[in-house]
Each structure stands twice: as C-alpha cells, then as structure tokens.
C-alpha cells in the first residue's frame, strides 16, 4: 500500500494532533491560537501531499545541494579562546558562570 493511501486524503489534522506536535516541538500554544493552527497546518499538509504524485522509486534522497561535498576535517588544535563572559551577557540568568534554570531534581 502506498503511503498516500495509508494517510488518506484529504488530510485533516485534529486538535489532538496539533497538541501532540506542539508538545514535540516544545511550543506552548494558547487556546486562542489553537484553531488557527489546526486549520492552517491541515491546509499545509494537504498542499505538500502533492509530492505523493511524484514517481521516486529508486531516486536517492538529496540532503545537500552540492554533490560530492564531504565533511572537512581539521587538525586537533585549540582554535577558540574563552569568551564565556561575553556570551553569557546574553543569558537570561547566570550565576558563577553557570546558566540558571528551574530546579530539575528535587
């Protein structure tokens, strides 16, 4: 069975689907915002569903626009100096050079 048939068409996401996606994405979505996302994400999913029509049997997936590129390696020598004070100036909460977050372990 093709994935297309598996998913069914048209594809309408439910509120529960969007809540699950939002949780996976670590996004809080307000009750007011929710209906807009249910509608617009459904229309986007239906729109991209057009891809199912393409014949892609043994085509290799393309992750990078320039073929033949490979990850460069460099000598294992220190190339960065310590900038932690400058970088941490942008942090919402820092103490003794550490990022402060709500207590995780009781």
């Amino acid at each position, binding site marked *: 069975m093709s994935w*297309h048939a598996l998913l069914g068409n048209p594809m309408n996401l439910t509120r529960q689907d969007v809540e699950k996606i939002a949780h*996976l994405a670590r*996004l809080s979505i307000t009750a007011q915002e929710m209906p807009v996302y249910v509608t617009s994400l459904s229309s986007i999913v239906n*729109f*991209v569903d057009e891809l199912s029509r393409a014949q*892609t049997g043994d085509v290799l997936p393309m992750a990078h*626009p320039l073929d033949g590129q490979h990850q460069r390696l460099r000598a294992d020598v220190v190339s960065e100096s310590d900038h932690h004070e400058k970088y*941490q100036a942008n942090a919402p909460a820092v103490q003794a050079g550490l990022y402060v977050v709500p207590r995780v372990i009781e």
Partner: protein
Amino acid sequence: MLHTLSIGELGRNLNSGQISSVELTRHFLARIERFNSALNALITLTAEQALAAAAAADAARAAGGQGPLLGIPLIHKDIFCTDGVRTSCGSRMLDNFIAPYDATVVAKLKTAGAVMLGKANMDEFAMGSSNETSYYGPVKNPWDRTKVPGGSSGGSAAATAARLAPFATGTDTGGSIRQPAALTGVTGVKPTYGRVSRYGMIAFASSLDQAGVFAQSAADAAIVLQAMAGFDPRDSTSIDAPVPNYPATLSAPLAGLKIGLLREFFDGLEARNAALIHEALKIYRSLGAETVEVSLPHLPLSVPTYYVVAPAECSSNLSRFDGVRFGYRCENPKDLLDLYTRSRGEGFGAEVKRRIMTGTYVLSAGYFDAYYLQAQKVRRLITDDFRAAFAQVDLLIGPTTPTPAFDIGAKINDPVTMYLNDIYTIGANLAGLPGLSLPCGFVDDLPMGLQLIGPHFSEAKLLNAAHLYQEATDWHRRSPHGYE
C-alpha cells in the same frame, strides 16, 4: 545627488577628494532620518558607529588606502550577527540579543572599509514573503506604501529602492533576495550555495540559506559580491574554490550565449508580465544571444518540496532557542518544561511556530518517509532537471514573481497562498544554483523583476548578462516617486 550615484562613481568622488566618507555617511543618515519612519525598513540605527567608521575610512584613504568599498555605506539585514550591536532576526525571541561576534559577511565588508548605517527589518527568522511576520511591524514598499516590499529581506530591498544606502545585504532561502528585489525594482543576487559564508548568519534552513546582495545595478552588485564571496573554514559547507573577478567580466560580449526560456514559468503567467519577459528576450537577442525553450518537468513540485525541507530544517535549527542561554525567557517558569514551552510559545511569532510545527510533523515517527524522505527525492529530481537544462543552455530566464507587489494584509492569513509567491524562485535554492533578479518594467505602476538562473558558480556570467541588459535599458535607474 549622492544617493543616485553608483558605487564606482562614489569611489571616484572619494578618491578625488570631492566628498569624504563622513559626508557621504551623513547624507544617507539624513535620508534614513527623513524616510524611515514611513517605510520601517531599518529597525536598528548605528549612526555613531557609522560616523566613526566613516572617519576611519577617510583616514585610511588619506594614508594611501584603497578599495572599491572603502568608505561606502551599507545596511545589513538583521539576520547577520554584528559584534556589539543588537541582532534580532526580526523576532521577539532575540529582541534583546547583542551579538558577541561578527558574521563572516559582516567582517569581510568591514575589512573592505564599508560603513554600516544600521540593521534592516525582515520577516521573523527569514520566514515570510511579505515582511509582515516581523516582530517590528511590516516594511512598506517605497513604490506604494500600501503594498508589501516582499520578503524575507524586505527591509534591505525597500532601503535600497528608497536609496537609504548604496547597497544592502540579504539572505535567500526560497527567494528572499530575488522576490523583494523584484517587488521594489532593484537588483538582487543570490549566489551559489556555499559561495558566501553562512557563519554568523542566523540559520533558518541550512541546506538552502545563502547570503547575497541588493544593489542599484549588476555592476554595483559585482563589486559587493567580490568582497563577500570566498572560502570560510568556519562554515562547514563553504566551498574552497577561487573567486573570479566579477567586475572584470561585466562587459564580456554575449554573442553565442544560449538562454533557455523556462516553459513551466509561463504556465498561467499573466499576459502583461509575460510581455515584459519577451521584451527582455528581444534585447538579449539583439545582444547576440540565442533563446530556446526548455522544460523542467518536476519544477511545479518545487514549492511543496520546499515546504517540507525548509520547515524540517527550521524545526531542528530553532530548537536552540530554549530560554536558557540567550534570547527571550518567560516570566516565572514553574519547571524546566514550562520554561522551554512558554519561552518558545511567547518568543516566536505565528508563522515561525507554524513552520516549526510543520517541520516537527514531517520529521515525526510514521511521517518521515512519506514527507521528508519523499521531498528529498523530489529535490533530486528537480536538481537533475536543472542539470539536464544546463547541458543545453548557459542560463535560464523567466519572471521572478507571478505578480507585482500585493497589498499589505492581503495574504498574511492564508499561508499556502503566501507560499505560492515563491513559485519561481524556490527551484534555484533546492538545486543550490545562483540566481539574480533585475528590474525589467512595470505592471500597474509597480516594478517587475526578470530572473536569471545559472549553473553552480556562474555568478560572473549572470552579472555579465544582467549588466549588458542594464546598459541597454534604464529600468534599474527608475526611482520611486518622492525618493528621487
């Protein structure tokens, strides 16, 4: 009228001592002061630093320093990190973010002596085609302030069109340089993927993002691209290949050049828009080029392909915004999960959240193969179509956008309609190809763009073809009323 001069002319005036960089910088700062409140093109002004940089450029010139950009003002899209200057990416998330280092593009232009006037407004995290998703409000099109300037680099485009700077930087992930260049009547260049460093450019979709330039002409763009391009070991996808001398070949004859007319770009194209492209083809034929029709059968799938690949990459890239190390943090988080979800929910705008969720969905268990892997396969089919076309022709030509600038508010509530604005530009991003948009006439008194797309690393040929068109026409010299 300093703001109507080309970069080359400004350089000659600076060299002869007729003007100083401080005077030039004051001239553009005064224009920003006069016009920006109506356009909302700049969101951060760096007047003090600009005048200091201009004074330094004047001193360097007096000491024998040279260079085509020494003392020339510019505006950076607010996606580029600028050391010590707020870098917001158009988002509440980064409203208070002071970049701790310079992007390579910023550093290279600084080394060349260019003078930053400020940072340009943009769609939030470069996600948008109208500059309406910015946390700082929409940018207005100088040709008609009820219209959008395009996006995502809308501030850079509007600023260049209104002559608030001789040039501006931008980024193009799905058309974000070419589309706003077309809608504001300026020249915009999106180089080959890997040609310009992405280091310090806030990531949206890493396999598509590429930095480029907005200028008043192809000749000016060639000068700027020369300074921006080149290998950068700090960008793992930067290409280690020599950069040709772009200005040197601007006037190379076009005799024998084969230009392919993209059949798929004309399906359903409005007659007045198509007529402008055919007028441009006549000019190219008069310059000795040969035009043939070519077909890229998978190109119509480029928009859905993009709206799987780009959101997937964005959902991964934007996971770094967690309310911990930088950026917005919500008030009184009750635990770590609450800190993450509310900081992100409150810090990101509607379109960014929509794309993160689209990306999360297409990458999630059960849907990965159907959407993401399928999109990557279609991406190869589209790329192979381009490769086959470039076996027959040297350049491809077509419109940049389906319509001229549309009304502010017209499409913002319908994402799919908004996404279709990029129908002609996305293909080049998927295949990593360089593209250029240049003004080619008007529809309803609004500028339209002609798009040239070439094989990888053909920027010199694109700039050459654009320059000779601009020698034969004066569309690029038209200025919006009130900004002359």
